[in-house]
């Protein structure tokens, strides 16, 4: 019947989702290591419309194709580097990541086009923590603390892992430990590397995800890898990733952009509401006025 009514309803729902995402960005303007989310909208799959009783009475064929509406398809994190600020707290770590791939030039959103015309994404570095159910989880939130057993944990209690996948355990005070830019630990008093139980130097497990869009946002500041995605790899020797102790990475949400997103979504929601009201008025006319003598 009146297909546009359903399109407008779908539009309202989609704008609501977009508004939710913008509000969540605003809610996290002060969350360390938070990556702002972008909602991607897509139209419903096309439908082919034909005339009723196609072919009879010499009336021919199809009218054309039509999209039945719109939906919020995915919510993409923007992996842009957040601002790094000094906190002076020895348990705060920040990751500066700007990994380059030879032959490719990434734009501000971390995208590049290969000579073959494929779109590829900039690899991103993350701290590796033992996440929910003991699986690996990845985070840029460097606000760690040291619990009573000496393990470095995130605010939610996920333990920070070393290159062997073991939790990093601290013997003394956090002040006694320093990090090199590649995440190796050494004693600040002696300059000697920190050794684990097997006598090997301890290094932070910095995971590189080649396609960061395989990460799913889990909440509690961590991401998990989607099932079946390429596993994370360890940081290579000459990749431009830097660990900074006593600093933290702020949220990369741009409050202005988030506010504008929110206002746009709200007005688009309003516009869709108006469209529904116009359809309602048309139906009102159809029901109550057509055929009135």
């Amino acid at each position, binding site marked *: 019947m009146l297909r546009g009514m359903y399109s407008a309803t779908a539009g309202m729902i989609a704008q609501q989702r977009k508004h939710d995402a913008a509000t969540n960005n*605003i809610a996290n303007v002060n969350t360390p290591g938070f990556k702002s989310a972008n909602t991607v909208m897509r139209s419903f799959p096309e439908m082919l419309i034909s005339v009723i009783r196609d072919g009879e009475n010499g009336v021919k064929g199809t009218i054309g194709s039509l999209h039945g509406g719109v939906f919020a398809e995915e919510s*993409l994190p923007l992996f842009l580097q957040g601002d790094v600020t000094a906190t002076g707290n020895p348990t705060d770590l920040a990751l500066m990541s700007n990994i380059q791939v030879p032959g490719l030039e990434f734009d501000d959103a971390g995208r590049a086009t290969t000579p073959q015309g494929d779109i590829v994404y900039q690899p991103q570095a993350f701290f590796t923590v033992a996440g929910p159910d003991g699986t690996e989880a990845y985070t840029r939130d460097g606000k760690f603390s040291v619990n009573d057993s000496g393990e470095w944990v995130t605010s939610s209690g996920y333990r920070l892992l070393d290159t062997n996948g073991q939790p990093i355990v601290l013997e003394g005070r956090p002040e006694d430990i320093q990090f090199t830019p590649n995440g190796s630990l050494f004693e600040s008093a002696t300059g000697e590397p920190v050794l684990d139980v097997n006598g090997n130097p301890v290094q932070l497990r910095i995971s590189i995800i080649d396609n960061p869009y395989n990460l799913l946002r889990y909440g509690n500041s961590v991401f998990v890898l989607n099932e079946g995605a390429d596993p994370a790899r360890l940081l290579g020797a000459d990749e431009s990733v830097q660990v900074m102790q006593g600093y933290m990475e702020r949220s990369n949400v741009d409050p202005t952009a988030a506010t504008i997103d929110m206002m746009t979504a709200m007005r688009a929601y309003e516009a869709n509401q108006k469209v529904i009201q116009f359809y309602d008025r048309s139906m009102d006319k159809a029901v109550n006025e057509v055929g009135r003598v």
Partner: protein
Amino acid sequence: MNHSMINASVSMNALMRKLDILSNNMANMNTDGFKKQEASFEDLLTIVKQQHPKQQLPGRISPAGTGITIGSGARLSQVQLNMSQGTLRSTDQPFDLAIEGDALFEIGLRTLDPEGNESFRQAWTRNGAFQASVIPGNESLMLTTSDGHPVYGVNDEPVLVPRGSEISVDSQGNIWSASTEDPAAPHELVGQLKLVRAIRPQLLQTHGDNLFVLPPQFAAQTGQLMEQLDLNQFAIGEAPVGVRQGFLEGSNVDLATEMAELIQVQRAFQLNARALTSSDTMMDLTNKLRG
């Protein structure tokens, strides 16, 4: 239903609590030995909303079948003590002691059980505004905090000082008394202040009255978590920690930092309030669909 509203209200709640912490810091800007608290935020659980199978189309950037993720705002996490050094201020009072470096005075927190029996619980402080208190039935005076809690010496006993004597404290925390009647008499060592270092400062809880305590579940590990410092082993001038007599340590609150944080919190609060208004308008629009 309305995630926008939930997001905004949850975050406004978290921002309110951060504001409370900031205002407490600012209120204690002139409290001796006060250590400021810091808090940060964390995003909350994310819901994955699956798309209808017919809408799982090829060509998306994130993996197929992962739907759309919806966040639920931010919460306040990790309220931490900042144990950095405060500025020292000269008072010229013999019982005013300040610590330079990372250490705490140990005191006995006096508590009374319902039967009226006294018991003492270990507590720590950076506020060295001590006084000599009279104890009934004893010739000596006891070194206590301004609230009357005894200050412990290295032997885990309250420090007692003789009546009518002049007290001097050296940088290692040794307390010497000199008789006021006979200036020529040699100084007598009456005790040494117990100084401890918090190995896990994040576990310390503030107890009011400028005291820190360990939560009861860590009471058994007090020895490991609070390391007693032996300052006698260091040569003069090489110790990482020193006691200064006649000085008090001011709070480590820096007004400029707190104000900057305050402005940030206020703006974030405004933004979230705007988001709340906006989602309210959207609900209003829904209500007026049939208008």
